[in-house]
């Protein structure tokens, strides 16, 4: 009896709250409806589409009409036992690791160097120039790389100048990763340094003053004041980067690689792309979706792990 009346009261209170909330916020809800419709159709519906990974998907039958895969992990097993599995996994981690190893510290270094410049005009000039490549589209960027790497291209000419031999660098598996990583740094170093420069501007100037009084030279000031001051920013960006460890720039690889460099250039995403859009034969949508899901889950895993480690060791984390 008593519980019943409490429930009744609660539901009345809830009803009142709902009515009040609606009266107050109906326009806000009206505004968010188009956003939710967009999310439903272009974010959540594809997430539902992930069940393709557990089905024997046929384009003619659609998602609902296609039968379930037997066993349910059929396509994941097929990926793991795929002869290409070790190759694409290794390449993905290697290219990603190299990009992080060289590409992550590069903008930090640039920001430190720019920060040490005393001449304002020179500083602004360096910034304007180094930001520029970021606005060159990927296609054009790879087009430029393509013409520069040709047998008679710019790089071969430079190599010949220094006593080397002319060759097509993009056809040589030995150079693919170098070309990929260096061009990545070339394009992004300036842009990625912006965030660090902003963080540098926030460092308390009195610390430098005190260090100078203690006789620290500029290099030591950089190591003992500037770098620690940057650490929280570095950590947050590092976590975000780690959450994308399996997301190598596959669009760029698609534009740069060819059959002769598959052994070093083929990564998970490019492999799924070729499975789904083969030059000939039937597209393997289910397997490709399974690999994509595997990719996303590994990324989320790395994001959570890095975040946890960072929270423990430096007290700064994403969530």
């Amino acid at each position, binding site marked *: 009896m008593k519980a019943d009346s409490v429930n009744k009261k609660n539901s009345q209170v809830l009803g009142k709250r709902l009515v009040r*909330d609606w009266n*107050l*916020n109906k*326009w*806000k809800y009206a*505004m*968010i409806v*188009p*956003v939710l419709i*967009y*999310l439903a*159709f*272009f*974010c*959540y*519906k*594809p*997430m*539902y*589409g992930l069940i*393709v990974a557990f089905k024997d998907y046929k384009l003619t039958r659609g*998602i609902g009409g296609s039968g379930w895969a037997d066993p349910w992990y059929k396509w994941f097993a097929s990926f793991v036992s795929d002869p290409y599995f070790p190759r694409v996994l290794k390449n993905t981690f290697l290219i990603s690791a190299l990009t992080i190893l060289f590409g992550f510290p590069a903008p930090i270094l640039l920001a430190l160097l720019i920060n*040490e410049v005393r001449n304002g005009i020179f500083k602004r*000039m*360096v910034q304007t*120039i180094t930001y*520029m490549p970021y*606005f060159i*589209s*990927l*296609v*054009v960027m*790879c*087009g*430029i790389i*393509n*013409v520069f790497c040709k047998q008679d*291209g*710019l790089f*071969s*000419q*430079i190599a010949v100048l220094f006593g080397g031999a002319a060759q097509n660098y993009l056809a040589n598996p030995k150079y693919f990763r170098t070309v990929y990583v260096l061009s990545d740094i*070339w394009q992004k*170093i300036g842009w990625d340094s912006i*965030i660090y420069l*902003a963080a540098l501007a926030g460092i308390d100037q009195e610390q430098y*003053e005190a260090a100078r009084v203690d006789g620290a*030279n*500029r*290099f030591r000031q950089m190591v003992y004041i500037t770098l620690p001051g940057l650490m929280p920013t570095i950590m*947050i960006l590092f976590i*975000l980067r780690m959450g994308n460890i399996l997301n190598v720039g596959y669009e760029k690889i698609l*534009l740069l690689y060819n059959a002769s460099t598959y052994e070093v250039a083929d990564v998970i995403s490019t492999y799924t792309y070729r499975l*789904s*859009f083969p030059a000939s034969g039937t597209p393997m*949508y289910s397997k490709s*979706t399974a690999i*994509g*899901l595997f990719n996303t889950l590994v990324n*989320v895993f790395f994001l959570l792990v890095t975040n946890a480690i960072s929270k423990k060791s430096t007290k700064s984390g994403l969530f």
Partner: protein
Amino acid sequence: MNEKLMKAKNRKISLGDKIFSIVNVTVLILLCLITIYPIWYVVCASFTENTYLVSNPGLLLRPHGFTLGAYKMALTHPLLLSGYRNILIVMCVSLPINILLTLFAGYFMASKKVLFKPIIQFLILFTMFFSGGMIPMYLNIRGLGLYNSLWSLILPGAMSVYNAIICRTAVEAVPESLTESAYIDGANDLVILFRIIVPLVKPTIAVLLLYYGVGHWNSWFNASIYLRDNDKLPIQNIMRAILIANSNVLNSAAAENDRANQFAEAIKYSTIVLTTLPVLCIYPFVQKYFVKGVMIGAVKG
């Protein structure tokens, strides 16, 4: 007084610091040269006769035998023209949708005392970390009947959650007293958003326009899987065909024109200049907005 003292101290530079400065400036100048040279090379090569390019490959410091032939070829190319037309259509339709949805989402996420805000906000933010991926999206586009239509380039990217967060940060910075008093005067949220908030967050809207605009202009991958007809492809995909893939997109067009061979190399460079120029031209003027955008994004990370 204090400033003068500091300047005097700065002037007393030790030898070590001097060397540090010199090395620093040298490294930065070298970096600038490495950044600028490839761009300069492309511009020079686009004005240079093909015969010169073929017989004298290598370092190019200035245009040789100044010619506009490659540009004439490029600008009369039917597929390049349709590429420009398509990307312009996509941008004209996309940008208003992008900005409207981003403003709505930003305004909603910045609002307080809304009962269902936490769950709706979670639904929005969750999509940043988890997504269906390439194939479910592709099948979705086919299922919705957008395949081989320009809408397939417009609707899937109608709003970016990252940009919505930038927008939320900007809306949160608007003093509450302004919206409060408008409420009391009987204005609804739509009026408040467009009459009060929008005029105050104009710089942020400029940043968002730039982000979305450059994003549309530079994208190519979706078009390559969602579109079938060559005359629907946007400019970057045509560029890809010219520069990278020895795709058959251009064969028919090139074969009918002997002049194509004469400028085969130079046309690559001139199309690079033509597609990059619009972005690089406005870039110096909007650089500070871009930088601002990065910082706003950084605050909320």
